[in-house]
């Protein structure tokens, strides 16, 4: 479980996250959505410890993340833009991460194998195509069998086959009681995957509840229409 209390973050004059209070349920898939620049990626980067909040606290399994780094052993993340050390081979990157993480659960190569990445093992990261990088990015998030998966726009840049494989994998992991946080602009993906939904607009939480609940509440046919009407009613 991830608990966020009174989180604030500004970049200069821009107040990106405004007093965010959240609880992300264990063992469920939670989608974070919002227009570009609403603070989704900032929120994720703060949970991952890449950015430091101005105020507020985050607890992962009731442990304050500002005090320790141990919790990152239990998180697998897929950043929006795959940024890798370019002079390393794929196999070296995997070995490096395995070496640096206290991987007690062993390695899960299911997604890696289904993406046929074994042929790319000896290639340098900089020589990989955009799609292959994104597949490596996805496979790495699952590789060390983390309890929490944080996926920032995972299906962007993937072809339909890779994207479906990824979604199958996400659902499979969720059945193993893993917590998944996902952001996306593709509403059909979210409807397909997520149970809970957090809607952020200009750094504030507008909705926090179940996906079904929101659609029924607004009386629309699908999530896309629901979100559109929600944005309109908020003056966007």
């Amino acid at each position: 479980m991830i608990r966020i209390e009174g989180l604030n973050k500004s970049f200069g004059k821009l107040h990106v996250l405004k007093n965010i209070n959240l609880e992300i349920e264990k063992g469920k898939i939670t989608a974070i959505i919002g227009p570009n620049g609403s603070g989704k990626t900032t929120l994720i980067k703060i949970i991952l410890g890449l950015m430091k909040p101005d105020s507020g606290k985050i607890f992962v399994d009731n442990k304050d993340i500002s005090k320790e780094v141990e919790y990152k052993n239990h998180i697998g993340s897929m950043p929006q833009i795959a940024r890798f050390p370019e002079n390393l081979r794929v196999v070296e990157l995997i070995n490096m991460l395995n070496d640096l993480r206290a991987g007690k659960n062993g390695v899960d190569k299911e997604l890696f194998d289904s993406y046929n990445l074994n042929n790319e093992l000896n290639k340098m990261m900089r020589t990989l195509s955009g799609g292959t990088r994104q597949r490596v990015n996805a496979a790495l998030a699952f590789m060390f069998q983390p309890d929490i998966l944080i996926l920032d726009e995972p299906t962007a840049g993937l072809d339909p086959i890779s994207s479906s494989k990824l979604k199958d994998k996400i659902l499979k992991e969720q059945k193993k009681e893993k917590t998944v946080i996902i952001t996306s602009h593709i509403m059909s993906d979210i409807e397909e995957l997520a149970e809970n939904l957090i809607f952020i607009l200009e750094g504030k939480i507008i909705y926090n509840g179940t996906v079904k609940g929101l659609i029924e509440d607004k009386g629309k046919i699908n999530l896309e229409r629901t979100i559109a009407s929600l944005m309109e009613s908020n003056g966007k």
Partner: protein
Amino acid sequence: MNTILKIIKYELRDVIRSKWILIYFAFLFLITEGMFQFSGSSSKVLLSMINIVLILIPIITISYGIIYMYSSREFTEMLLAQPIKRKTLYTGLYSGLALPLSLAYLGGVGIPFIIHGVDESGQFTVLLILLMSGVALSFVFTSLAVLISLSSDDKVKGLGIGIFVWLFMAVVYDGALLFGSYLLSEYPLEKPMLGMTMLNPIDLARVLLMLKFDMSALMGYTGAVFKKFFGSPYGMLLSSGMLMLWIIVPYLIGKRIFVRKDF
């Protein structure tokens, strides 16, 4: 500690694969070896190496350090998402940069001296000081490079600041000092000059080297004052201490920035 070594290991692989560090080593090696071939006496080689050390090490270290820090941003971000403390990561990144640069220097200049030897045993201390001050300068300018690259997210601006810092310390500072002493030539300036010299790491290394070569006589009365001060154990200790400060202070400021930085 274990994690620091792991980070250094992976960074070293990256640094060596980029080949620049090997070119730096080969360059220093060829210059030193070439001088032995042309001049034949180790004292002349030592003398020529002073200027190489004082000019080349700072500019190469600071520009390579800054470029490396920007281009390894991905490496840093990836490691930050792993269970590694930021302080540990910083120490690892710094060492992974300062160590290969120092080793390339030690090897490039040291190996020809091992091959050819020194003419008199007295020159051995000079060689030792040459090697030590070169390593110290490598660390000083690595600290500055890391600090500069963390202070600005703009690559071009960072490199610009780096080159400006080098230009200021290697050229402008001495010029200004000379001009100042010319304007104020009526006054006894030895003490203030001593103080000003202490504030520039390149000057500190230069004075340490010059005095070992007994060239202070060329510098007149000021040279005598300098020799008296820097030649004494107290002066040696103080100037080495100042060089250490030049390593530690930017290193610590950089660490403070790194621990709080948003990636």
